[in-house]
């Protein structure tokens, strides 16, 4: 019921404001790229005389309502030719703009690309945009352009190092990032345990990372939103591009189905089978592949539909006895509909799943686990007038969790088929979000998201004494799994737990002068899903679990304040932000918790809390032959799990020490200092050079404070959590791109990329383990480092 009330008040709001716009007219339309009809996101349609303007949305649509008059209009998107036009606005009208790539026009390439240009007027802060052009320039391991690795160079973003999945934003955990590929939720962003990300950069148009000030249309993860848009496909002409790299090869084909109306795009990427062949014998395989597809059909001026799909898998095999397969699959149907020239809508129906499968023949079983979700979204963008835009919508997601199913892999196997109890949940949300220019200097963003999460019934549910699945041993001072006193079957239709949250989002921008502004924001977010992982970075085997009777949703409050400045007309930009956030109900695990194949995960989980704060600085040079940025982050990220409040049992008050004696401890992703430098230098028409430098404080770890022996085993033991650190992490990468001059005359255009990762061959520690050397019997500390210096060559082509 609450939902309907919220919705109706929202509709009321929109009508109330609607009545203001009287003798004004609306200009609307779509901005596309001339050569391909690919819509462009974030294009500015500006009216310099009025000092106002609008930016195209995720589907290239814009709408602005202005008083009658004659105006000069400028459509600008860096990297493209500006369109300057005079228009007479005496009736509402629709104008579509087609932009032409700057480079194609000019003999002499003048690099003025600045797609990631900072908008100092919008209240939106804590956001970073990277164009695929930039991502492709950033030198990466083995020359494989990588979205996730690129965002690690932004302030406030780190990860646990090479071969670590995911990323951490502003001291948040990996499972706190909402990763959207064409609006579908991606649960695992990594191939090969984190060496590569699952996104094929050729098929991607644009990415946006929200680290704070997250708009109300997003929800469900507390740290960040990484919004990735796939290309739509070229509806003008047939195009092919691809690349041959050291790890994988890529091929993208796009073209019109019906000129200017419908287009398709198919992009595939596959690593070479036997990727690490030299290391093993011939029976073994390790490879990954992914496939992106998209169809779009522009039915008429008011309606467009899109179909997109993604399928990716990683496969490892060791002879026949061990085969491991995992990956994401996503299918998505979207319908853009223009109700009026001011009211844009999009309906999405999305299915996405993550699958993990394992065949272990020498123990005699197959194992699979995963998560599926069905997601329906209906979003509206209402351009009320040039001062006020309202976004509102609803979203419903149904989840099905399979924590694991085991079955015998052959006839002789003694394994009995078993399905760990599947879990089900439904998440509903409704939101409204206003963006308002209050005065010439002050812009406000304010919104509210209402989220409702229902943990649905399941076949088996444990019941515990005092409703307490984790016992504290008052003598040993450790937490232990409680034994269930009963197991009930609530049935699939039951409602095991309901959570409702109101999530306000507020932001403001105050423009000090033409080139500088101050912004502030407050964000509250609720997260109902948790990734069960107690290694330093998630593994593909980790499973997601929903909030429910024993696990509470994570609740975030984040405050951020920033100063933004464009220098020299935007040739340089400087931004700095401070943030503070705390997360209630961050789950923590009891010592020795086993998270895999655990049918009673509530027995090893305690609800703790987390907090992080920091300062971010980003200085960018946006124009010229030499471009790049310097990012610095100073931050702290901690968590703690105090003992639960004492309860009285048999006249005794039961005190608990908590995890780590209830003290705050560093999260595994606490990295106080983080410096990233990216520089790109266009030497001449043939050569360009790109380079990264990364320096980070070593990640927290644990060194033993002692050892003892038991039955011949040497067992190190530890003190308080995460007190020590690995050595600081740093490296330089370099790449050079060669574009042969004869390209101009050829149909096939090619380029060579030569890259060197970790130029000075630093052996950055991924971990330090303490063990007894079996041969010498001596105890030793062993450092594992993943990559030394790695050179690679990639060839890219298009025709």
């Amino acid at each position, binding site marked *: 019921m609450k939902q309907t009330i919220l919705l109706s008040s929202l509709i009321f709001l929109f009508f109330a404001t609607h009545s203001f716009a009287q003798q004004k007219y609306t200009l609307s339309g779509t901005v596309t790229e001339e050569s391909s009809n690919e819509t462009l996101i974030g294009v500015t349609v500006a009216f310099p005389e009025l000092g106002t303007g609008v930016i195209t949305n995720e589907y290239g649509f814009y709408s602005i309502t202005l008083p009658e008059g004659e105006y000069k209009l400028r459509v600008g998107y860096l990297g493209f030719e500006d369109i300057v036009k005079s228009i007479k606005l005496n009736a509402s009208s629709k104008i579509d703009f087609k932009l032409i790539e700057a480079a194609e026009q000019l003999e002499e390439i003048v690099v003025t690309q600045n797609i990631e240009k900072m908008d100092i007027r919008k209240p939106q802060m804590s956001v970073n945009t990277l164009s695929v052009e930039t991502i492709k320039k950033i030198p990466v391991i083995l020359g494989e352009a990588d979205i996730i690795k690129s965002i690690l160079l932004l302030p406030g973003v780190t990860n646990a190092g090479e071969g670590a999945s995911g990323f951490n934003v502003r001291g948040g955990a990996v499972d706190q990032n909402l990763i959207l590929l064409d609006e579908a939720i991606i649960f695992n962003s990594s191939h090969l345990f984190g060496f590569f990300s699952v996104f094929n950069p050729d098929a991607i148009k644009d990415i946006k990372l929200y680290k704070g000030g997250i708009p109300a249309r997003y929800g469900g993860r507390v740290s960040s939103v990484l919004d990735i848009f796939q290309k739509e496909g070229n509806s003008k002409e047939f195009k092919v591009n691809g690349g041959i790299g050291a790890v994988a090869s890529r091929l993208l084909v796009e073209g019109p189905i019906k000129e200017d109306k419908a287009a398709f795009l198919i992009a595939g990427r596959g690593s070479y089978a036997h990727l690490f062949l030299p290391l093993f014998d011939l029976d073994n395989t390790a490879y990954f592949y992914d496939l992106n597809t998209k169809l779009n059909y522009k039915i008429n001026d008011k309606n467009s539909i899109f179909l997109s799909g993604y399928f990716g898998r990683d496969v490892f095999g060791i*002879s026949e006895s061990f085969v491991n397969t995992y990956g994401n699959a996503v299918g998505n149907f979207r319908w853009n509909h223009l109700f009026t020239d001011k009211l844009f809508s999009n309906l999405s129906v999305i299915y996405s799943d993550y699958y993990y499968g394992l065949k272990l023949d020498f123990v005699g079983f197959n194992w699979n686990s995963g998560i599926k979700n069905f997601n329906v979204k209906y979003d509206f963008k209402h351009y009320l007038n040039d001062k006020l835009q309202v976004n509102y919508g609803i979203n419903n997601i149904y989840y099905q969790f399979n924590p694991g199913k085991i079955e015998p892999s052959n006839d002789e196997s003694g394994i009995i088929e078993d399905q760990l109890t599947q879990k089900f949940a439904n998440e509903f949300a409704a939101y409204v979000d206003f963006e308002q220019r209050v005065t010439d200097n002050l812009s406000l963003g304010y919104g509210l998201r209402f989220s409702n999460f229902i943990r649905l019934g399941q076949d088996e549910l444990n019941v515990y004494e005092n409703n307490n699945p984790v016992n504290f041993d008052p003598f040993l001072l450790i937490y232990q799994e409680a034994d269930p006193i009963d197991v009930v079957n609530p049935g699939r239709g039951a409602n095991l737990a309901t959570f409702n949250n109101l999530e306000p989002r507020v932001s403001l921008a105050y423009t000090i002068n033409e080139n500088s502004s101050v912004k502030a924001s407050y964000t509250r977010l609720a997260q109902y899903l948790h990734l069960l992982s107690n290694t330093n970075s998630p593994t593909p085997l980790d499973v997601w679990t929903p909030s429910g009777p024993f696990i509470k949703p994570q609740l975030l409050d984040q405050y951020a304040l920033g100063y933004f400045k464009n220098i020299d007309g935007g040739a340089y930009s400087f931004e700095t932000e401070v943030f503070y956030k705390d997360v209630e109900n961050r789950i923590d695990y009891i010592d020795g918790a086993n998270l895999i194949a655990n049918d009673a995960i509530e027995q090893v989980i305690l609800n703790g809390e987390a907090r992080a704060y920091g300062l971010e600085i980003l200085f960018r040079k946006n124009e010229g032959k030499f471009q790049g940025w310097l990012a610095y982050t100073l931050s702290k990220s901690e968590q703690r799990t105090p003992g639960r409040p004492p309860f009285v049992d048999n006249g005794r008050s039961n005190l608990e020490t908590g995890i780590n004696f209830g003290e705050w401890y560093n999260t595994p992703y606490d990295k106080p200092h983080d410096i990233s430098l990216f520089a790109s230098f266009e030497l001449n028409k043939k050569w360009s050079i790109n380079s990264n430098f990364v320096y980070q404080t070593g990640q927290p770890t644990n060194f033993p404070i002692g050892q003892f022996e038991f039955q011949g085993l040497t067992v190190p033991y530890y003190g308080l959590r995460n007190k020590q650190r690995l050595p600081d992490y740093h490296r330089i990468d370099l790449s050079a791109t060669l574009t042969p001059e004869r390209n101009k005359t050829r149909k096939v255009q090619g380029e060579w990329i030569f890259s060197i990762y970790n130029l000075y061959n630093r052996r950055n520690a*991924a971990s330090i383990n303490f063990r007894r050397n079996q041969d010498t019997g001596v105890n030793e500390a062993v450092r594992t480092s993943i990559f030394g210096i790695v050179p690679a060559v990639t060839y890219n082509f298009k025709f």
Partner: protein
Amino acid sequence: MRKCLYILIIVFSLMGCQDVIEVDLDTEPPRLTVDALIRIDTSESITKARIKVGLSSSFFEANQAVQVNQMIIQNLDYVPSGPLDQNFIILNETQLGIYEGSRNTAFFTSGELNLTIDYNGEFFLAKTRFAPSVPFNNIIQGDATLFSGDETELIVSFTDNVNRDDFYIFDFDFNEYLVSEDKFYQGQEFEFSYFYDNLKVGQTVTISILGADESFYKYMDQLIVQSGNSQGPFQVPVATVRGNLINVTGIDNTAVVDNVQSSNNFALGYFAVVQEFKQQIMIE
């Protein structure tokens, strides 16, 4: 399942490189450590209990054996077999850090067993019960390999007891252990392969299957993880593995009912009494 994770890890640890480095470690004062795993062959009428005590050390130093003031195993449920029999054993020091005592096997195989150690006025208590096991059906040498092609495969099979939830600890010799529970093979004949790295032809390997209760199974699982050689690039979460020894000094159950106020005063190690079946195999 944990074993599978290791395999994934091994794949990737091969990609990286490992080297031994110098690390400065913090240390704490030595603690009492107790190795009180009593393995019982139920076909023997007399069982000798042998318990090792020592002091923990910093990671790069060796543990020292230590003398304790008294060590007793008591079984209050045990009915003495005659006037010379008692329901407790006082263990005697046979060499520094080694305490031994013998009794009827029946003393160990039913009832609650309490181990009490007096160490310089600190009293430690651990309770346990006999954990049964099952015999091997057979152990044969296979010819499969895993990664390097040099491994020796042993195929181990046994039949799980259908009437109880079993936990097993396999002692594969050379300080190599494996834990298993019957959750997914209740009452079945179960067979799996174990791979050795450096075995020579003609070498004899002794393999044991030990029973365990759930908490000892978890304890051993943790010990194997913490002492493991194959942790690889995913850093396994570390923990101080607390056994079942409780420091009961000063606990009077009126004024002091728990150890919450003396959280740092604990001993390491475990007291468990388990059934053992052993088999030897010569590598061909």
